[in-house]
């Protein structure tokens, strides 16, 4: 019953999406508002319908309906409830449906919130969002159906089908439960409750600005309307993607057991690429809003961001690249590639069409190398260069060498650490300088003067870091550049508050809150800059000054690393957890300056029923702001456990990455928070329907 219900709801959502796209397009051609309203209602209906689909799949997972192949594949009777929920997106079929569900939620929100304000663009927004949704639902219906059930045919063959086929009987429930696979051990981590949904929200969220950009191109409304309408949607997608990326790093740090958080893996990079173009767009969109410039460029960046999203999805889900993060090889590779190619070709074609017609002419030109807009453009160029370098390393070079040179190559961390650091450094320099420069034109002298206080603060931070972690002069200089990008943001905020405090006589608290409330976009952005600086210092420190050692210790023996002493106290072998996994746990004590600071239990988990990779090395860590003392249990003497081998890392400043991310979220929330006055103005000036005058 659940399978049929889920399938029918998904199929109805598919039909509704197709209907909405077709009728919305037709409504523009015949200028009929009733048709457009019908299309809108169909588009809105996709969200509750997919809510039903996802709800039924979730119920099937929670109530252990193992006849459904997806449930059998990702859970077993020992799976805890928490992981039954996360199993919803734990494999290809479920995650595709979940993806469509999020997309319909975004479309629903956009239609409800922007219907009155953007009537001219909405028909096209419906067309593009619903066509994309219909495509992803077709993958769920025809390639990766999560509602298929197992049936035993009269000739004893097992087939998968949603509905009962002639003469087939369902397998015995007990047998199904006994043989169920269980969730991939890699996905049994607390972060899985938030990491994939956030990543999907980041990916899928960009459909909204993309659809508005395409709507602007199609409708001819090429003002800043589409940028203003989608600023918050873009920020929501961007912050979700940022969080998804960092939480993915945290998952790797906690689960993959290699002591780091970012491995430049092709799948990590596939998610990072749209982030780079999306971040460039967030900056250049400001120039269009304020100066009426870079219209073609902004369109290009937004179309490129969504194209990168679909390409990343194709790379991750098709088996194009091998990675611990990717899904298994699947038949959806070709349809996804065709969709990516089609959507990219159509969007670039439309952009060129409008460009050649002269519809995207800028209102102003750049006229100084040192204006804020020039520095923003330079920032965009560096983002694009980073995109090129990372795309080439992850996909370009491996595909090129295989196709044209007959050789398989892997460009790993070595490559990325040779190519990307100079570009990141230039980005940090621009982050420090651009906020201090003026629109239109500025002078070097003025810029230098404005840098005095932030530079002094940055020097102070560098001195502090040098005390914490002795470093070479070039590294200190890089720390300084990164710190400057944060102190400029901080100082600009303090300066603004000082101005209010002195000239308006406001209290410091009032001055700060009023300043931020007056321009949330700017000061939210500054908070984000500050967070990126913190994150950058954490990433640099943990990368450059990571220490590691591997040693075999007998019980009672110790090893020393980076001022810490670790003593091996004992071993607990064969501990069975509630979910059926078998844990081998080492017990160690960590001391610093002769004082005990932590007792840690690094362990190895073994999943007897799991297919493929069935053991996991789970690290244990003692965390401080200064560093992480991170221990992995590598091996042990199996019979007596008198000795065990440990790999120990000191990861300096790594916790700044997690704290920086928290600040990034706060900053984005500030920047996104609706301004009541603007909301009122928008409400009062709601656009009449562009189809008005027809058959409304």
């Amino acid at each position, binding site marked *: 019953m659940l399978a049929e219900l889920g399938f029918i709801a998904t199929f109805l959502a598919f039909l509704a999406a197709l209907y909405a796209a077709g009728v919305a397009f037709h409504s523009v051609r015949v200028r009929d508002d009733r048709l457009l309203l019908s299309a809108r209602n169909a588009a809105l209906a996709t969200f509750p319908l997919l809510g039903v689909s996802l709800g039924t799949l979730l119920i099937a997972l929670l109530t252990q309906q193992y006849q459904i192949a997806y449930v059998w594949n990702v859970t077993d009777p020992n799976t805890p409830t928490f992981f039954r929920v996360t199993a919803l997106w734990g494999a290809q079929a479920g995650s595709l449906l979940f993806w469509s569900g999020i997309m319909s939620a975004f479309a629903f929100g956009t239609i409800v919130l922007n219907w009155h304000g953007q009537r001219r663009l909405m028909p096209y927004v419906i067309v593009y969002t619903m066509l994309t949704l219909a495509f992803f639902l077709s993958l769920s219906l025809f390639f990766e159906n999560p509602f298929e059930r197992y049936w035993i045919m009269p000739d004893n063959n097992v087939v998968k089908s949603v509905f009962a086929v002639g003469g087939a009987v369902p397998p015995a429930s007990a047998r199904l439960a006994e043989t169920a696979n269980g969730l991939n051990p890699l996905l049994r981590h607390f972060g899985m409750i938030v990491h994939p949904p956030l990543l999907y929200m980041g990916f899928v969220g960009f459909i909204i600005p993309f659809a508005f950009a395409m709507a602007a191109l199609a409708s001819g409304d090429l003002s800043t309307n589409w940028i203003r309408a989608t600023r918050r949607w873009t920020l929501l997608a961007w912050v979700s993607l940022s969080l998804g990326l960092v939480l993915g790093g945290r998952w790797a740090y906690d689960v993959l057991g290699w002591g780091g958080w970012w491995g430049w893996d092709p799948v990590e990079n596939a998610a990072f690429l749209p982030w780079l173009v999306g971040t460039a767009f967030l900056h250049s969109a400001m120039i269009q809003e304020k100066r009426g410039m870079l219209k073609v460029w902004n369109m290009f960046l937004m179309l490129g961001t969504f194209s990168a999203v679909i390409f990343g999805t194709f790379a991750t889900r098709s088996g194009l690249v091998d990675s*611990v993060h990717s899904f298994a090889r699947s038949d959806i590779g070709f349809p996804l590639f065709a969709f990516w190619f089609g959507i990219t070709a159509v969007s670039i074609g439309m952009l060129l069409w409008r460009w050649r017609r002269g519809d995207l002419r800028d209102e102003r030109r750049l006229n100084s190398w040192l*204006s804020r807009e020039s520095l923003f453009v330079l920032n965009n160029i560096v983002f694009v260069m980073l995109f*090129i370098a990372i795309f080439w390393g992850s996909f370009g070079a491996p595909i090129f060498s295989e196709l044209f*040179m007959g050789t*398989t190559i892997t460009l790993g961390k070595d490559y990325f650490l040779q190519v990307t650091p100079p570009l990141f450094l230039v980005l940090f320099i621009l982050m420090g300088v651009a906020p201090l420069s*003026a629109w239109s034109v500025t002078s070097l002298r003025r810029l230098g003067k404005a840098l005095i206080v932030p530079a002094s603060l940055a020097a102070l931070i560098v001195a502090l870091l040098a005390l914490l972690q002795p470093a070479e002069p070039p590294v200190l200089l890089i720390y300084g550049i990164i710190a400057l990008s944060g102190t400029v943001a901080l100082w600009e905020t303090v*300066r603004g508050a000082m101005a209010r405090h002195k000239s308006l006589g406001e209290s410091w608290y009032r001055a700060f809150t009023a300043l931020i409330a007056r321009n949330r976009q700017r000061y939210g952005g500054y908070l984000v800059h500050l967070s990126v600086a913190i994150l950058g210092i954490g990433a640099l420190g943990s990368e450059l000054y990571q220490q590691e050692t*591997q040693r075999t210790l007998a019980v009672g023996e110790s090893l020393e690393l980076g001022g810490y002493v670790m003593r091996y106290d004992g071993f607990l072998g064969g501990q069975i957890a509630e979910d059926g996994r078998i844990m081998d746990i080492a017990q160690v004590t960590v001391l610093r300056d002769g004082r005990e600071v932590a007792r840690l239990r690094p362990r190895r988990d073994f999943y007897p029923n799991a297919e493929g990779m069935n053991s996991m090395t789970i690290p244990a860590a003692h965390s401080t702001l200064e560093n992480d003392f991170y221990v992995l249990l590598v091996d042990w003497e199996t019979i007596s456990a008198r000795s065990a081998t440990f790999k120990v890392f000191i990861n300096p400043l790594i916790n700044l990455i997690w704290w920086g991310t928290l600040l990034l979220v706060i900053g984005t929330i500030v920047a996104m928070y609706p301004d009541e006055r603007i909301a009122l103005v928008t409400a009062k000036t709601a656009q009449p329907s562009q189809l008005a005058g027809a058959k409304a």
Partner: protein
Amino acid sequence: MKSLLRIALGLVVIVTALSAVQLSVHAQDNPRRPVTDDEVNAVSKKLYCPVCENITLDTCGTLACAQWREEVRILLSEGKTPEQVIENFVARFGDRVVGTPVDPTLRALSLVTPWLLSTLVLLSAAAIFIRWRKESAAAPKASAAQPSVQVTTHTLEEYRARIEADLAARR
């Protein structure tokens, strides 16, 4: 018969003794030095598992990788340098086992291409910018740059005015 047996036994002893001497001489020529786990990991970190998914050899948990790590240890203990060990793996499994190809053509292709493409982007942007500046210079003064308030502001009062002006422009 007994004497034949004695001769045969004697020959076995002599051959064994000679072999032992030979082995001992060989062992003295190539003394195996103890290799620490850290040395093995330092090399394994630079090698990618030839069969797994973008995982370096030092972290891969498969049995195959454990054996390859042992090979690294043996090669190092035989006196091979880390570079020689890496070359050995590349010769057997190809350039996919290293993070950047060892083959000069592939290496150049990998490392130069992104910079080449980036330079093209940069040059294109510079050309567009220069063209814009020329167009701006040719345009009448009225449409020229309108310097923002910030250009001449220094005091806090003026700074606050600039913030308000920027905000007004946004609206």
